[in-house]
């Protein structure tokens, strides 16, 4: 018997068992996710006819999606909102993750994480709507500020525009940003920080030279896990964005459900995902030196 045959026999056991075990889930994902995504990609190159799709290969949908002033501005705005939300969310989240990891007693960490995650799991729609209440003309912020005499006219720049979209999304994705950073911080061997200080660095410099680089994998994960889904958020721009806060998901919904233009809707969706993927790849590439090393 040759080594090759032995190898095959080994494959027959572990690899085959693993594949068999994962197959129900994998087949489901192939049928319900991979195939539909492939279909969208295909549709984006077809031509829209009245009430039917014409099987003519074309780039027209992409030309339209990328050159039409309306679509382009929505796309750029979505990207801008997504980036701002990501920046705000991750910056606000880091100190919390740091606090829970470094300053909370080990026995209470779970409780803190639980407290942080709870709002995330409670009705998203209602949470978004409540931000409308908080930021609205007669809302909590305005009536509060008027009440204590800071302003005498309600502020109107905080609702139905990009600002309100950013605030609401930053709120919605907060736990998503905190958890990966927390996990990365938890993995840091505390003696490394002592070593940093032992070698003569101040606490702050130790943080910059030791803690931050070691936490970067978590930060990168946070950025991606916030950035990618936010660009496709539908509810928030719809409810609190107003006409000038519309984002790409609203556009996709419009094309699919209102205008029945599947090919153009698909082209917009594919373009949005392509841009997001490109941004993510560039971002990961810029941070790759932090992501190497032992797993």
């Amino acid at each position, binding site marked *: 018997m040759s080594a090759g045959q032995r190898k095959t026999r080994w494959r027959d056991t572990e690899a085959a068992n693993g594949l068999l075990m*994962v197959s129900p889930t994998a087949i489901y994902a192939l049928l319900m996710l991979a195939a539909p995504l492939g279909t969208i990609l295909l549709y984006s190159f077809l031509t829209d006819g009245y009430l039917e799709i014409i099987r003519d290969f074309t780039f027209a949908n992409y030309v339209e999606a990328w050159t039409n002033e309306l679509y382009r501005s929505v796309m750029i705005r979505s990207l801008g909102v997504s980036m701002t939300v990501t920046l705000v969310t991750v910056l606000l989240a880091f*100190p919390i993750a740091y606090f829970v990891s470094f300053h909370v007693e080990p026995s209470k960490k779970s409780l803190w994480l639980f407290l942080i995650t709870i709002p995330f799991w409670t009705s998203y729609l209602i949470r978004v709507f409540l931000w409308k209440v908080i930021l609205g003309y007669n809302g909590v912020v305005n009536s509060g500020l008027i009440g204590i005499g800071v302003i005498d006219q309600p502020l109107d720049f905080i609702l139905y525009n990009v600002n309100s979209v950013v605030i609401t999304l930053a709120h919605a994705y907060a736990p998503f940003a905190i958890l990966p950073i927390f996990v990365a911080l938890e993995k840091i061997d505390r003696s490394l920080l002592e070593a940093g200080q032992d070698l003569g660095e101040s606490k702050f410099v130790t943080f910059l030279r030791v803690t931050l680089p070691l936490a970067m994998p978590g930060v990168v994960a946070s950025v991606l896990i916030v950035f990618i889904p936010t660009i496709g958020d539908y509810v928030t721009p719809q409810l609190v964005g107003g006409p000038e806060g519309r984002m790409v998901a609203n556009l996709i919904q419009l094309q699919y459900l209102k205008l029945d233009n599947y090919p153009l809707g698909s082209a917009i969706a594919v373009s949005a995902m392509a841009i997001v993927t490109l941004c993510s790849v560039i971002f990961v590439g810029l941070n790759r030196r932090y992501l190497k090393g032992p797993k």
Partner: protein
Amino acid sequence: MMKGGWFKVYAIGYLLFLYAPIIILPMFAFNDATVIAFPLTGFSTRWFSAMLEQPTLSIAVKNSLFIAVTSSILATTLGIFAARASTRYRFPVKAGIMGLIMLPLVLPEIIVAVSLLVVLLGLGVSLSLWTVILGHVLICTPFCIAILSSAFQSLDQSLEEAAYDLGESAASTFRLIILPLVMPGIISSLLISFTISLDEFIIAFFLAGTEPTLPVFIFSQFRFPQAVPVIMALGTVLVVLSILLLTIAEYFRRRGIAKAGGKDTGGFL
């Protein structure tokens, strides 16, 4: 703990920001006025009684419960297979397969929704609660896998071998050893996917056809200002309910880890 002083102030401020909507919600649910604005006018439970008289709401609740129960069972079942496979076996293109299965975790839901919509309509499948379930299973499965993987991971492989060594078959080992030890993880996975499905809007919006689900109903009511206080009452009930479910899920998740002799490393994700 002076060291963490400023951090603690910040953390509490942050929690306030996180909880702001949830704190405000019951204020309006129990407020007498029809308009959702400050100042509050007076205590009333009339929105709760009005809620119970909504005929569409009870249909929506029934639909959502059906979807959530079915999706959570299916997603947890699929999750068990994938979590078991990924924690126990090495197999070809594992990273690719697991990556595809976990993709909905980051993929915007609208992409999942429209892509499924296109395929289902293309195949001539008419939209119903079942088409929503198809989508919900897809987005719940990654969460189930995350929870179940930690349950399977804290399971020492030699426990299975020991049972096998002591004369049990693969099936009875699964029943006597693995299942009892990962059961808390399974319960937690069921509860979490139930919560996600119950709350999910976009996929239901695209795939439910004419059948209302709870979030779709809520979304439609936002257009009518006079209906909003009832939604606030409904929201209060939902928030209380989901906090309850989550607490139970967290309890089981922790018990599972403790039972298998593992160390608690964090939250749900």
